[in-house]
């Protein structure tokens, strides 16, 4: 079994947004365990706890309080990676709106809700891309943007979330082409996993958990630690260096229409 000293991400520096809980926390801890130095970013103190958990894996991790909708804060998080760890190899933009699980019909979406979805998922992706590129280009790095099945198949209950995550896919495909000559890979990852956001969706949408399990060929909703984070570690590692511009769907086989 590999550890931080001989893991696949040894010597690499990874910035994870939205790392206070759920998938972001799982990715941060897994990257640390795989040998990466991790900048754990999030707007709240729970991201500091994630940094502590990641450090407990024997890796190196620092907390950067970051609201990804604010350009200066993303720039500061990137700079923290450079200042503390000497550079930046990868960014995993996992942050998404706190309203991402709010059930609302399209005709009832108000401006505030729409703007919040776009600000966190999409503008946050733009900020990450813009400020990280000079550093990623130096190290032939990676940008991973988290998307959603809703981006590819639509969602009756989460239309704003679907639109924001769809836009992220469009951005990722174009950035993959734009940055390919620089040696920088850009990938989207579409996970299906039990997260705090999905737990809230279960409350708002009774029966959702059971229905999800029924439509997943592997028979269960994924686990952030054991099903999603290892795929991210792979995508950040040397074995994935020829993958770019793709949406990697990690959902137990539920979506097969690509």
């Amino acid at each position, binding site marked *: 079994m590999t550890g931080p000293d001989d893991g696949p991400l040894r010597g690499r520096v990874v910035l994870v947004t939205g790392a206070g809980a759920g998938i972001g926390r799982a990715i941060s801890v897994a990257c640390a365990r795989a040998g990466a130095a991790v900048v754990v970013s999030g707007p709240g103190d729970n991201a500091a706890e994630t940094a502590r958990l990641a450090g407990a894996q024997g890796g190196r991790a620092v907390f950067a309080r970051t609201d990804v909708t604010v350009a200066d804060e993303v720039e500061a998080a990137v700079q923290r990676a450079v200042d503390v760890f000497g550079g930046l190899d990868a960014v995993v933009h996992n942050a998404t709106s706190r309203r991402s699980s709010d059930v609302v019909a399209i005709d009832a979406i108000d401006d505030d809700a*729409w703007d919040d979805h776009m600000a966190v998922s999409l503008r946050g992706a733009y900020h990450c891309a*813009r400020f990280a590129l000079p550093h990623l280009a130096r190290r032939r790095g990676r940008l991973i943007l988290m998307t959603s099945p809703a981006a590819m198949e639509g969602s009756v209950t989460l239309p704003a979330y679907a639109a924001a995550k769809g*836009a992220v896919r*469009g951005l990722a495909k174009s950035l993959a*082409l734009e940055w390919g000559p620089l040696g920088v890979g850009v990938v989207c990852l579409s996970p299906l996993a039990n997260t705090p956001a999905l737990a809230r969706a279960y409350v708002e949408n009774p029966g959702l958990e059971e229905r999800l399990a029924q439509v997943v060929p592997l028979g269960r909703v994924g686990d952030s630690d054991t099903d999603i984070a290892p795929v991210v570690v792979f995508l950040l590692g040397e074995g994935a260096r020829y993958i770019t511009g793709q949406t990697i769907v990690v959902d137990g086989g539920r979506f097969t229409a690509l």
Partner: protein
Amino acid sequence: MNTEGPAPSVAVVGADTGAGAALAAGLEDLGASVVTLPGAVLARGVGFRAALDDAGRGAGALDAVVIASVGTGPTLPGALSELDADAWHARVEVPLQRTLVGFQGAYGALRAGGGTLVLVVPTLALIGAAGFGPWAAVTEGQRALAKAAGRAWGPSAVTVHCVAVPAALLVREAAPTGAGVLPPGHETRLDRPGQPPPALDAPDMRGCVAPVVQTLISPAWRSVTGATVAVDGGVWMTP
């Protein structure tokens, strides 16, 4: 919804662009009753729904709303790393805001009697394009919202489709004069140069795209929604 055959009542939004005007003309060629609206009517607070209601009073109950353009901002080229915050807002967030306004207004106008919302988008969003990240982002956001709306509005007999056309076609016809909005040389970066040539002749808005839109809003397509139909002469043949 148009159930009588060849004379649907259609509002074409973004008809102040060359592409939108050509599409409107093509639909009129096919016998549709067409009301044209500028893309600016999709701005927040302008009253798109009221504009559609006015259009419906003038042309009869609308069968379809076609959004040919949400503005030319997304079509402007540039590396993402060189895009400042204001440009990002103008090229990505504002067009997406306008998209939501368009969806909400169209649904309000169509929900009583059923009908179809069609968005005209560039094929570059299906496959990405260097230097056009904003346009691809806007379009993929639109396509995801179209699928969400298609699922949600089916019970009201409101269908939603995207028609994907070569980006160069939209850029070339983005201005009323027919002049392109891109600086010289940028058009060649659209639609992934170096790919195999189109299997068919390159389409134009009036003669090729308009008939497809006319078909999509016809009763023959009442069992289809959330689709993206590529009218690109057979370049990408995406799954």
